[in-house]
Each structure stands twice: as C-alpha cells, then as structure tokens.
C-alpha cells in the first residue's frame, strides 16, 4: 500500500471532490488512520484544516503525522492547522445548555473558515471531526443538538468551498433504532468504511476499506469499490 500516499482508492474517492465525507469504523478495524491520511492530504494540497479533537490531544496527532512526514506543529504555527481541543467539551458555565456550547463552537469554526477564505492564496478548507460518537456523548446523548451543529458545518461546504470529514464508530449503534449513524449516511457524499477481513486476521493485512460514493449534489454518480490493504 502507498502508506503515505493515501492509497489509490482513497485518492480516487477524494478526487471527485466530495463535500461531506463520513468515515465509519468498528473496534475490530479502527479507521483513525484514514483521518490521518486525509489530514496529511489536506495540508499537503495547500489547504487549511480545522481539526475538532475529542479523542486525542494534539501531541498524539503531532506524533503520528510526524511519522508520516507531516509537521503539524509547523502548520499550526503558520495558521494552516486550527486545532480545537474538545476533550473537555462542552465545558463552559455549569448548567449551560448544550445547544449554546455547540453554537459557540460553530461560531469559532465559522470565524477561522471565514478568515481563511479572505486570506491570500487560500486553498480548500477542511473541517475534520474526531469523532462524532464522542461528540454525541459530550452532548449527553442529545442527537438533535449534534445534528443541528453538523447541519451548520454542512452549510459551510456549500457556501465557503469547504469540506467536512467526520469519523463515527458504526458498531456502537443498534441496527434497530434510528440514530446519528443513519442521519450521517444520508448527508454524506462519500462513505468510507473500515472493516475486518471476512477471512479473519492475516500477517500483513489488517483489514479492508471500501468507499461508497453517494450523490454529490447533481454531479454524475460514480461507483467504485476497492480494497485498501494495510
């Protein structure tokens, strides 16, 4: 596999310019590596990124991306990476509404997106959320508040030449109820799913990733499925 190049399938899928990308994974096949690849790809392409991190501190991403040849500290210093440490989200005054916390967070994101848009030589802006399942936990299970926040992030993709990449753990959601997962699949232009191999573990292959490009606005529908070996 082109470990640092993102793999043919990933590059191909992202090449069609999807606005909203949903990355799904499970315990047996975590897909954090997909976020790392997309993060590196976004910064290498001259764009800027707002990374909303609920899962890990900055030092973790810095360490991982450094091994992939990408200096996150430098990008952060140059204003191309905007790191939102949300491990303590929602924070704020006790008793404050969750919706108010999401509103403040969206305001911060809109400000950095706007600042990037009016900057010289502004490239593509990517908002990345790691991960939406933790966002739901931070919102005390309020799916409506999470969906409102995500909707506003999606509106940025149509108004501000922005893309949205979110990671969600599909195996924590029941197949019977309607939850965040199903709503995300509806709004996604591209779904990237990591899953274990049906044949079980292998020495040099840890899992498989498939991509399901969905409708991208009114563009032609592209369907390609492939396997990305680790």
């Amino acid at each position, binding site marked *: 596999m082109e470990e640092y190049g993102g793999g043919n399938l990933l590059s191909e899928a992202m090449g069609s310019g999807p606005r909203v990308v949903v990355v799904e994974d499970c315990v047996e096949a975590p897909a954090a590596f997909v976020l790392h690849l997309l993060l590196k790809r976004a910064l290498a392409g001259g764009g800027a990124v707002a990374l909303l991190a609920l899962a890990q501190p900055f030092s973790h991403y810095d360490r991982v991306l450094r091994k992939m040849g990408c200096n996150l500290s430098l990008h952060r210093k140059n204003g191309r990476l905007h790191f939102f440490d949300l491990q303590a989200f929602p924070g704020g005054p006790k008793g404050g509404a969750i919706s108010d916390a999401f509103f403040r967070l969206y*305001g911060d994101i809109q400000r950095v997106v706007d600042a990037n848009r009016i900057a010289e030589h502004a490239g593509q802006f990517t908002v990345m959320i790691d991960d939406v399942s933790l966002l739901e936990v931070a919102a005390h299970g309020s799916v*409506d508040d999470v969906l409102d926040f995500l909707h506003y992030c999606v*509106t940025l993709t149509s108004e501000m030449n922005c893309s949205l990449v979110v990671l969600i753990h599909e195996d924590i959601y029941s197949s019977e109820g309607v939850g965040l997962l*199903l709503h995300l699949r509806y709004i996604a232009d591209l779904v990237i799913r990591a899953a274990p191999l049906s044949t079980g573990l292998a020495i040099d292959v840890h899992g*498989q990733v498939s991509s399901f490009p969905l409708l991208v*606005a009114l563009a032609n529908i592209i369907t390609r499925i492939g396997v990305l070996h680790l």
Partner: protein
Amino acid sequence: MAEAAVRYLRDGRLEGEHAPALSVSGSLQCCPLAARAMLHVTAALASQAASGKSQARGLVIVAFDRSPEVYLDFMRRRGLDPNTFNRCVRILDCYSDPIGWKQKIQSQQHQESSVEPCSMDKENVTIFRSVKDVDKLMCSIIDLGRGFEGEGKIYFTIAIESISSMLKHASVSSISGLLSNLRSHDQTSSIFWLIHSDLHEPKFSRAFECLSTMVASVEPAVVDSVYEEEIPGNMSFLEKNYSNAKFYVRLKRRNGRVKHLYEELCVEGNDVKFISSPSVSAEVNQNLLPKVGLYISSSI
C-alpha cells in the same frame, strides 16, 4: 408514472375540495434517487406554472435539505430561464440558517460579515430562521404564495423537502397540522413532500401517507439479502441501486378507487428518466363504500 403524478398536481384542486397531496418516500438504499425524483417533479411543476398550463401561478419550495442554489442550477439545466424562474418560483430557505445561528453571530460581531448565504442576493429566496415555530413557517409559506402575480384568484403549489428534516425540529402532530392546514388553504393548488422512510418509525411515515392523496415510493432496483461486507468486491447491486430504482405510485381517485402505477427510474447524466412498464402496472378496484346486504323474508 411520474408524468401522471405531475399532471395530477398540475390540475390542482376542485372548488370545495382540499388540495391534492403527493408524498414521495425513499430509503437510504436509493436515497439519491428519491431526492432526484422530487427534483424532477419540482422542476416539471415549475415549468407548467411558467407556461400557464397549471392551475397554480407559481411554486413555493420549502427547502430544508439543500441550498437554494441546487434548485436554481437544476431548473436552469432543465431550460427554465432565470426571469421565468424568478417569476414563478419562490424558495423559503430553511437550509442556510434554520435556527438563526448565523444571524446571531453576525449581530454579535457588529459588522458586515462576509459569511452571507448566497441566497441573500436572490430576489426569490427568503431565508427562514425559526424552523421550530411551525405556525410562523406556515405564515411564511402562505405569504410567499400570495406574492405571485396574476389576475383573479392566485393559486400556488407547495413543495417541501423534506418532512424528515422538519421532524428534527418539530413534532409529528404539529407538522401533520401544518400539512392539513396548507391542504385546506383556499389558495393552495397542490402540495407534495419528500420523506425518508427509514429515518422514522413506520407509524409516522404512514401518518404522513394518510395525509396524502397520492403516494410515490422509490425502492431499490436490486435487493440483496446478504449484507455487503460478507461478499467483498461483489457490489454490483449497490452500483445498480445508485443508478436505478423502482417508482411505485398509488393514486386515490375521487370515486374511491386506488390506482397502482409502476415505472423504472434511472439516472442519465444530471437528470433522471422514468421508463414505463405497462405489463406491470395494474388498476386495483377498491370500493371504499360499505357493502349493504338487503334480505327480504316472508312469513307467509
């Protein structure tokens, strides 16, 4: 039969009756196609209104799922010129700022923000920022509809995309009330909406079907009972379902009979095409009047 559905909505209401209502439903397996079917009907009705062939003088689109630009682009590709579009279509933009966050940010910043939804520059697009207030939503829809020009009584058609997005902000009962009130409003010619059936409990989807006089279901062309991960690489059914679907229509006639129609729906470039299948379509006689038996016996 997509054209039958369009004609049904185009012809509008009779005096003393409620406006005809079409419910378009789809699921995740073929959701892009259900959305495209909705766009097709929307564009067709806009054209009919523009050419004066419909009872309605104009179309009010209540847009929750997409930016108004999507409708503008689609209708432009369908050949509707911008002047005609501005004359015959009004968009109530519930997508750009549904709960007023952007307006709040702008007022907090006390300055002209460069983050303006593109719809603010369009004369026929009105941003709506209180989607939780269903009464206010209804008033805004009616106000837009009354704004169409013409002589005599002005009728208008209403398109809602989608009910599923509305249900994130308001209750089933309030939205049902909204749809009923819109249907009974004396200037509503017809109304149609999109609903994603798998986002709700079946009873809610059926409740909205009961409010309609025509139901169009977009269903996957190929149904594979094996979950796709078990057959890696064999995704042909997925590919098929993203470009083809089945379009079932149930139309309740005034005489109580229910007509069943079927077409195949397929994607062609940026558009969607409906292909009739006459051998499959059937008419079902359902007499809704109770049958009364009369027995006469004689004791002689």
